[in-house]
């Protein structure tokens, strides 16, 4: 049996390379710097380009520019840097840019504790840009998952043309762990829908049929989605087609547009393309104990302590179930509601003041209210002093 002794940063960088990443721009920040250094060192080997940008705004801007030439971009940062990414996250949503962003959570607010772990960015990531549009966020809770979920993030970003976040915490990135090498299972990574046909005047390069909507210089419509949750095919800058990209509300040509019907449809599209794919996006792992009345729901490093508590509980007559969420956004409603079945008490351990518990509360209270059910008790287990939540703390929360 072969094992590797390795940290999360290595697994994330390796996952990105295996996923076909060929562009990285970043700015040094603890604890995300190792990812920058891995990518700068490794990308040349696969013919990719890595650059240290002048700041985080530039880093994400460069990634977005590169993406539109067809590159598979990647960037990693932490609290202060993700704050600077904010405006461009919105641009990536609006322009439908495939982009994987790692936010290694360290203690905040502001500079906080650079070398101190936390899980305080969970809601920031969800609502991290103006407008209130959905994003996808995955949270690894082991080094192996750092590898597989990074690949999954690339797959979703590419196929759905959207920014996808990976939310590890400092602990997971910098700590060494032992991995059974058989668990490095590659995830198939898809590609954004591409327009490859040559440009022929008046004929859509997507459908191969004449299209009266095409303008003289166009041979495809860069923002044409049908059905509403369909992903618009795109052509890279430098390819055979003319492509328009814009941060503004736009029509199918990529021209600035204020027509309420078109703008409304565009904004619904940006929401629905993620909403309608919840089934494939929602990921997690449930350990269900038949006699348990308590269910833990956790993610990231904290889920490791929770799982250890569940294991100890099994052996010591303190049965509990545990749901480790791998997808944080969109909220994996089906997974959570299914897991809750049969439990009277929910404990949500996390290294913040209960950011994710609030999500779970409204989900379950709403569900119970609508269906005339008695909701379970929902309690948080929280820590914000830089220390980890321990298995002992979790065990004490089992009733």
């Amino acid at each position: 049996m072969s094992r590797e002794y390795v940290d999360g940063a290595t697994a994330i960088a390796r996952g990105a390379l295996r996923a076909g990443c060929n562009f990285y721009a970043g700015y040094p920040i603890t604890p995300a710097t190792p990812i920058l250094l891995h990518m700068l060192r490794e990308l040349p080997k696969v013919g990719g380009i890595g650059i240290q940008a002048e700041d985080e705004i530039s880093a994400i801007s460069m990634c977005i520019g590169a993406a539109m030439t067809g590159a598979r971009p990647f960037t990693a940062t932490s609290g202060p840097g993700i704050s600077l990414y904010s405006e461009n996250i919105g641009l990536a949503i609006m322009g439908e840019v495939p982009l994987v962003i790692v936010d290694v959570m360290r203690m905040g607010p502001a500079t906080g504790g650079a070398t101190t772990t936390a899980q305080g960015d969970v809601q920031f990531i969800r609502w991290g840009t103006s407008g209130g549009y959905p994003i996808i966020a995955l949270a690894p809770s082991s080094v192996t998952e750092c590898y597989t979920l990074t690949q999954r993030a690339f797959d979703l970003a590419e196929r759905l043309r959207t920014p996808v976040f990976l939310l590890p915490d400092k602990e997971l990135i910098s700590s060494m762990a032992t991995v059974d090498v058989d668990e490095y299972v590659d995830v198939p990574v898809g590609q954004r829908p591409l327009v490859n046909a040559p440009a022929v005047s008046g004929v859509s390069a997507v459908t191969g049929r004449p299209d009266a909507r095409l303008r003289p210089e166009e041979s495809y419509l860069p923002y044409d989605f049908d059905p509403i949750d369909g992903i618009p095919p795109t052509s890279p800058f430098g390819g055979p087609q003319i492509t328009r990209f814009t941060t503004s509300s736009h029509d199918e040509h990529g021209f600035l547009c204020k027509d309420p019907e078109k703008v409304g449809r565009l904004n619904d599209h940006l929401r629905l393309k993620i909403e309608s794919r919840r089934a494939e996006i929602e990921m997690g792992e449930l350990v269900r104990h038949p006699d348990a009345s308590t269910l833990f729901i956790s993610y990231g490093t904290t889920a490791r302590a929770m799982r250890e508590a569940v294991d100890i509980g099994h052996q010591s007559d303190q049965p509990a179930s545990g749901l480790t969420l791998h997808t944080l956004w969109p909220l994996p409603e089906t997974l959570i509601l299914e897991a809750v079945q049969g439990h009277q008490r929910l404990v949500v351990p996390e290294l913040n003041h209960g950011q994710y518990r609030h999500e779970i509360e409204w989900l379950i209270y709403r569900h119970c209210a609508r269906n005339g059910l008695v909701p379970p008790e929902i309690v948080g287990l929280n820590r914000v002093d830089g220390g980890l939540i321990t298995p002992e703390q979790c065990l004490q929360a089992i009733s």
Partner: protein
Amino acid sequence: MATSSPVQIQPVETYRNERPIPFCPGCGHSILLDRLDAALRQLQLDPTQVVIVSDIGCVGLSDQYFSTNTFHGLHGRSVAYATGIKLANPDLHVIVLMGDGGVGIGGTHVLNAARRNIGITVLVFNNFNFGMTGGEHSVTTFSDAITASTRSGNLEHPLDVCASVAVNGAGYVYRGSSFDKDLPQQMAAAIAYDGFALMDIWELCTAYFVPNNHFGRKEMLERIESLGMETGVLQHLPANEYSRRLHALTERFAGQDTMPVKALTPAFNSPLDHKFHLIIAGSAGAKVRSAAKAIGYAGVLSGLWATQRDDYPTTVKTGHSISEIILSPEEIRYTGIAKPDALVLLSEDGLKKVRHRLTTMTPDDIFITTPEFADVETAARKMILRPGAGDVRITRTNRSLIVTAAALRLLKLFPIAAYEQAIRRFQARFADENLKVVAASAGLLEE
């Protein structure tokens, strides 16, 4: 310049589309867009190989009137998108259209693109104010000028965009105005230039700056002169373009294996039948973490599962350095340590951080340290080691290793040969030196 698209045989008659330009009557932006079209016609670039990147502001509307690739981005960030586009595809002709407002908010990108000499062309539509938001002052607004936000006259000094980029390495720098007769040729020259080219083009915002300051063509041209600013091509250096240099560097490494899994097959046996928690506490800069890291490798080489988490200040060479290692015959989930089974204390810095741990330890646990900490309070069994007793000279950097290695000999978590193998394999650069230290560590136990 050659075109690369096979379908395009006829000369491109216009790079503009039929959509009417929306700017106010007399707005300088309209003139510049016409001149840009003329420049592109001169160059006959393949429209599919051109990307016009626009900023925000009135100038940010401009991309929509061209039939090339276009990218309309955020306020001040156009140069950063352009940099990403050019880095990913150096064959593209990337032209940035930005206002003086964009230069202000995105100044760092302009300076850094100039410094890198990346092959993009930046056309600054400089009308000395924010047109789109109602005529507020910008970084290029003249002193005393009246704007919506400087009603009593601007107190700030105008930025010399050209001088700023020129002094920082921009390959090609031009200052002129929308009234320059040869503007198409000048633009064509800037676009054809291989490195970073910037044109600071002064022009009139007829909605705001002109009426606010009784300003017109004559006043603008006089102003250039009275400020002592030169016009024309101000800098033209041999291009040593960045994106191509970066791609050339990259090619040197092409095809090398990238981040292969460093699989370890157990070659040693460990007597450990339960989870073992070990803390090593010392000073930053004293190689505590590397001594600790080899323990994890040795554990895995002995069929165990290992984890290590470190605590150290952001200033990596001073203060404490604490490594928490867990070794276990079974997979480890939680990586924290509630109570160590053994604690190796190496320094005063370390003691400050682990004093509370020492008080939790019981007589079943082991506290390993050096004579200066012999009196530290703990219920754990004490083992005092005397580095310096052997034949290796003890230094700040090998002290952690010799004490750690001696501790491993005492703890017998795995054969010391596993630790030596870990050092050989994963710390190859210092292996000879470190193996000598590990060998000498046996001497500490003979005392």
